[in-house]
């Protein structure tokens, strides 16, 4: 564990300063490797766990055979292969996409608003998506008569409408110069949308269970449908946010000073918020409101690896993915064959885990 920030630029300066010195270890690469490794091991664990036990060796040869040009023979029966390809893998990949997205958006929101408590559901995302989902459950077309499931679409639209409203309200109140105003506008919009959502939910009380099930979050898949549904949005969102990693570091000196450094802060904020919201809305649309990931993962990364957004954003993406994949394993296996809502798991295991990280690493606690 390093006691120093691990930006590669620090090393570079020391090198430029004293060319004779050997290049110090690049900690950043090590962290990246650790992130990839934890995601990979989380996925392996998730493949192995499940009601139908799959032989590990068989899974490996099956996966390797799937690579083009390699053939190691069948390790799994057809039924087992079906479970692997159509049930287990899609769900794992979906968990990784949603978890990575939520954690990275959380980090991005925290950077853009310079507020450690900002989460991906800030600015009315959650309330908007909740209202959309409730409307879809209560009044939406029956999924058997519609070619596509209406719920994700409604939730997605609701999330975006929520943020657009918050942005509009905030800007009429002059939030272009004041980030707190925008957050307050988000709070107001969220309260309003939640009121409507609660009203609808109470009137159509037979939907209560489904609505709560959605709000607490769940990863359920029908083959690769959900993965393919959100993949484009998640990809765009992740690429845009990651490209802004250096600019988020610049924003950390505040709007005025970032302005004197030549940054158009309002534009950067708008682009990053839009991208993070796009990804979050997509994640919410298929998984419901999985809480906590967007706050605890980025902060755990900061505590352990460093606070530069060049570190926090990519590592949050990887570790958020790993975290949610593992949380889903717990959600599937603790009360098996019943499933627990994954949002309950993320909070139940996330909070103590975070407390441990806080305790063992007091670097950030001044």
């Amino acid at each position, binding site marked *: 564990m390093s006691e*120093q*920030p691990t*930006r590669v*630029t*620090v090393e*570079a*300066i*020391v090198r*430029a*300063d004293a060319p004779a010195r050997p290049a110090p270890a690049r900690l950043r690469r090590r962290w990246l490797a650790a992130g990839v490794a934890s995601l990979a091991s989380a996925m392996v664990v998730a493949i192995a766990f499940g009601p139908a036990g799959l032989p590990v060796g068989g899974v490996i040869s099956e996966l390797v055979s799937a690579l083009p040009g390699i053939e190691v023979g069948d390790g799994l029966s057809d039924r087992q292969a079906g479970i692997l390809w159509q049930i287990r893998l899609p769900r794992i990949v979906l968990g990784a996409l949603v978890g990575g997205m939520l954690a990275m958006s959380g980090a991005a929101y925290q950077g853009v608003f310079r507020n450690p408590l900002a989460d991906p559901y800030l600015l009315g995302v959650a309330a908007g998506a909740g209202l959309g989902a409730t409307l879809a459950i209560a009044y939406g077309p029956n999924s058997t008569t519609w070619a596509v499931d209406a719920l994700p679409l409604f939730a997605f639209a609701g999330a975006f409408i929520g943020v657009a409203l918050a942005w509009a309200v905030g800007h009429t109140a002059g939030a272009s110069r004041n980030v707190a105003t925008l957050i307050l506008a988000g709070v107001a919009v969220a309260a309003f949308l939640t009121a409507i959502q609660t009203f609808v939910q109470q009137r159509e009380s037979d939907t209560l269970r489904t609505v709560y099930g959605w709000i607490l979050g769940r990863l359920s898949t029908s083959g690769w449908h959900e993965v393919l549904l959100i993949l484009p949005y998640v990809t765009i969102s992740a690429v845009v946010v990651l*490209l*802004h990693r*250096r*600019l988020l*570091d*610049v924003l*950390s*000196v*505040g709007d*005025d*000073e970032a*302005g*004197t*450094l*030549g*940054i*158009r802060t309002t534009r950067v904020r708008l682009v990053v918020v839009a991208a993070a919201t796009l990804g979050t809305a997509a994640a919410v649309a298929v998984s419901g409101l999985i809480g906590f990931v967007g706050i605890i993962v980025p902060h755990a990364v*900061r505590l352990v690896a*460093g*606070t*530069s957004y060049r570190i926090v954003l990519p590592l949050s993406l990887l570790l958020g993915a790993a975290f949610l994949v593992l949380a889903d394993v717990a959600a599937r296996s603790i009360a098996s064959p019943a499933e627990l809502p994954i949002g309950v798991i993320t909070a139940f295991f996330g909070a103590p885990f975070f407390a441990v990280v806080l305790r063992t690493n007091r*670097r*950030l606690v*001044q």
Partner: protein
Amino acid sequence: MIAISLSNVTVSFGDFDAVDDLTAEIPAGQWVGLIGPNGAGKTSLLRAVLGLLPHSGRISLDGTDHAALTRRDLSRQVALVPQTPVCPPEMAVADYVLLGRTPYISYLGTETVHDIEVVAAIIDRLDLGHFVRRPLRTLSGGELQRVVLARALAQQAPVLLLDEPTSALDVGHQQQVLELVDELCRHDGLTVVAAMHDLTLAGQFADRLLLMSNGRSVAMGPPADVLTEHTISEHYGASVRVLRDECGGVVVVPTRAHTRGSADTGLTDDTGLADEASADARG
């Protein structure tokens, strides 16, 4: 050569004019001290020059109208050492100074080897080499001030604006930072505009002083002309003696118009006292 030309610049907050119809010219390569009581509009003026506040009137930098410059152009022209810098506590000194290269890095780009060399040279020059890896939160006030100055210098802008650069520093560090800026001004031809409250220091380092009061420019000229007991008492409401040191500099000493023993007699005629004092000083 005029580095900054201000004509009829007004900065308004609602119907209050923080800077009121101010006209002045800052010659290139000079150190201009911006003085004036609290709330005179010094920070507002600097912020307007940086393009952070809307203004009316005309500001031009090196002959180019402000309005014709983009944010990025502006940041290559003018760098700021803020009154109260926002310092991300965990950021390493080297990374913080590198932020100063932002004007030269494309929107989504990263630092080049050249940027790193520039920053390494500045770090060397400001003698920050031994704490490049330290997080900002571990620095003392004086060290932090030098680091913030380093970030501004990394912008390699010909104009450096300093807003109370020494208010948090002890006498020694005040001099150290100001000497450093002075050297940059003399040797590198930097134009310096420094808002300062310590009138003696302002007089010692600046080539000229611009005295602001209620948003207006009330005097501009060499320190000895601007720093008179009369103007200081008029605009600061302070009673001071202005003395001359042996090198021709000006020393502003606050005075108390009465002794403890006679405190209940209230204020005495401090104008008389001031006249006497200046007669002393000059005689």
